[in-house]
């Protein structure tokens, strides 16, 4: 057979797809299912392994990864198409879809210029205060509205300051990194604070409900987790300023020029005010009504109102939302449920416990370590939401208190500080081209240690007061 360079190039580009398929085929045909695991459970784990390889290396588009998850479940996973479809759309997927749309709707109103003005008035001109302000504002806003919206609104503010401080032939790499990481790490640290802070939080809530593991209200979540956000904000600022010492101690000129630029926005228009009120209503709904209606439904009510009042066009919404991601979350959650139903999750959980029991004899500590390690490591390779979607069912099968283990898993999935892929905020600042991959490592290990210590304190000192 004649093999052209085009064919070889295709093979080279798609090698991870071929590897995933080869591994899956070999496991399916050549390796029998373990005795303690059902045939279908084994097949579901094979599908998950193939999917992890595909998500990690992205040899095919994300929607294609989602699609293969669907048909493999039907062909080799022992599920019917209706079963897979039944788990495909749920409140977590509605929430992810709704919050992505709300982000587009809010950002398109131009409210970030007012936000910039507010931050500057609050922080003044000193660089360390600006970095602290960026971290705090990003964390607090992100805890309610999610990191992607916050980073999209904050990045232009930081880049404008960077532009106004730039001088030819003079490097401001410390200042640039400090400003950008204060947004990314601030938003990431904050995203655990409330259920609406990230898709992974809602995915875990969905698993709790689906598996009958109990539930947490919006307020209960805040009470249990928010102290960690508040502790981490000043420490994050300190780590950033120590890791990336800014070259300038004051940003007088840049702040003045930014103030002039954003002042051109004029007084707040009725449309902007109405958008704010609408979003405030969504937030209120999340806090007081999410137990009844679900976070996703309330987010969709917000999207409906933004569309109905003409504050955003459907064209803008559909263009700004990556539908492939929504498809993938639907598919990932459906296989997560199948992993639980077929016994695959329990088998993995038992295996992890048995493997590490000789190292960590205390079963509660062991469960916590497995939960945190699995989520923390995987989130640096995949995204945090995908991590929770895959790891969630395993963690909830470890035994012990599923709410506490679930919370630990969700929180540690936010520890994706080492790479640009884990958190949307990190990806966004990386895509600006102004920070490099090694910068994430330089600050990431300090952030990880700080976060692990904070989580340990939270679970040992704070959570016992509630459970």
């Amino acid at each position, binding site marked *: 057979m*004649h*093999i*052209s*360079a085009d*064919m*070889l*190039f295709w093979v*080279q*580009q798609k090698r991870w797809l071929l590897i995933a398929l080869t591994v899956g085929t070999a496991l399916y045909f050549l390796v029998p299912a373990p005795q303690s695991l059902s045939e279908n459970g084994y097949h579901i784990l094979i599908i998950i392994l193939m999917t992890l390889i595909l*998500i990690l290396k*992205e040899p095919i*588009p*994300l929607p294609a990864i989602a699609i293969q998850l669907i048909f493999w479940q039907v062909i080799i996973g022992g599920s019917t198409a209706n079963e897979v479809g039944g788990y495909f759309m749920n409140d977590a997927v509605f929430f992810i879809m709704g919050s*992505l749309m709300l*982000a*587009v709707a809010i*950002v*398109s109103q*131009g409210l*970030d210029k007012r936000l910039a003005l507010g931050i500057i008035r609050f922080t003044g001109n000193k660089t360390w205060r600006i970095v602290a302000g960026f971290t705090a504002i990003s964390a607090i806003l992100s805890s309610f509205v999610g*990191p*992607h*919206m916050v*980073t*999209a*609104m904050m*990045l*232009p503010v930081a*880049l*404008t300051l960077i*532009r106004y401080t730039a001088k030819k032939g003079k490097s401001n790499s410390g200042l640039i990194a400090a400003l950008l990481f204060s947004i990314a790490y601030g938003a990431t640290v904050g995203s655990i604070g409330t259920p609406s802070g990230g898709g992974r939080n809602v995915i875990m809530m969905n698993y709790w409900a689906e598996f009958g593991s109990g539930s947490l209200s919006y307020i209960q979540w805040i009470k249990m987790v928010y102290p960690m956000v508040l502790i981490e904000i000043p420490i994050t600022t300190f780590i950033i300023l120590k890791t990336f010492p800014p070259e300038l101690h004051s940003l007088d000129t840049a702040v003045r020029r930014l103030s002039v630029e954003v002042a051109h926005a004029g007084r707040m228009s009725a449309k902007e005010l109405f958008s704010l009120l609408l979003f405030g209503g969504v937030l209120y709904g999340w806090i007081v009504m999410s137990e009844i209606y679900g976070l996703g439904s309330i987010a969709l009510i917000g999207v409906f109102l933004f569309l109905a009042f003409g504050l955003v066009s459907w064209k803008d919404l559909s*263009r*700004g*939302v*990556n539908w*492939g*991601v929504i498809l*993938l979350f639907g598919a990932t959650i459906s296989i997560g449920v199948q992993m639980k139903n077929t016994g695959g999750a329990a088998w993995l959980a038992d295996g992890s416990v048995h493997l590490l029991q000789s190292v960590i004899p205390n079963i509660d500590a062991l469960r916590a370590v497995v939960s945190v390690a699995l989520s923390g490591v995987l989130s640096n390779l*995949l*995204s945090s939401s*995908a991590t929770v979607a895959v790891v969630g069912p395993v963690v909830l099968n470890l035994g012990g208190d599923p709410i506490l283990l679930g919370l630990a898993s969700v929180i540690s999935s936010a520890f994706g500080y080492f790479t*640009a*892929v884990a958190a*949307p*905020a990190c*990806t*966004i600042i*990386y*895509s*600006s*081209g*102004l920070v490099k991959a090694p910068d994430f490592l330089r600050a990431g290990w300090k952030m990880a240690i700080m976060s692990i210590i904070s989580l340990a304190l939270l679970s040992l000192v704070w959570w016992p007061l509630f459970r």
Partner: protein
Amino acid sequence: MTKKKPLIDPKSLKFLTAVSSAEYSKPTLKMGALIASVFDASLGVVYVGERASEFHGSAVNLTRTNLDNWNIIHPGLEVLEWALDELKKLSPENKELAKIQFNPDHVYEEDGRVRVILPEEKGCRIELVLREGELVDQMRKEIQLESYDLAIIGGSQNKRHLAHSLIQYLPSSIFVLQKLNPRKKYKLLLLVDDSAATRKSVEWGALIAEKLGWPVRTLTVSKTIRFGAGYQGAADKAKAYFDSRGIEVEQFFLTGDPVRTFVEFAGDNHFVIMGASTLNPIKQLLFGSKPIKTLEQSDAPILIVR
């Protein structure tokens, strides 16, 4: 050979060069501009940035849309702005080019690329393109989309692996600059054998010789003492083609390992032109090819004709 339709049209040549940053790409861009001006070719400059994980595609797109609202340019466009400035500096005599201002708002997104719209009616023959993804894949797509004749790449020692991939997979001819010295007068060394690419190599050789006035040598290497009819015929046809264009040519026939002979003969005072390998691509990948091995062992600038 002279009766056949030419394989390259010297009046509509299109060259492509990739840049990464002001720090690393200045020499490549400089040489690309110089070579394009010598051949009166249009020059495409492509910057291939890293693509964000598709997982966070919505967030990245949302941020970029918002950056537009703040008049902050798309990341990567600043590299193209730098490239345009450099091209202006390199051609101070080009008054039309000097008038062109980089406008980050004048961009057009199509086919997974961002193209900076430059006023072609003013005689600008430069194309500035931003792509995101893997370098070889994106350069392949750009070459296929715009039908470039030649890709100009740097070929520094630490990027040899990349150069191999580019040689193997790019669908155009490739010029690996290596240690090309623009002030030096090279001798053209054309490697002639019975492969299909030799005819096009000869046309390139003639074009370069005419443009630069460099003396031409052809080298045919046989592993055995006997030179087959194919090799002899190819050498004769090459000479006939040069003769028809009024270009003097010296012919050399040597015996030995082809790559070692090319490299020893070329030294550092030849500009090597050779055809792309016709070996099965898998064999090329596993065992290398003559162009790849020559590139590995030689410091001479090499034009690999496809």
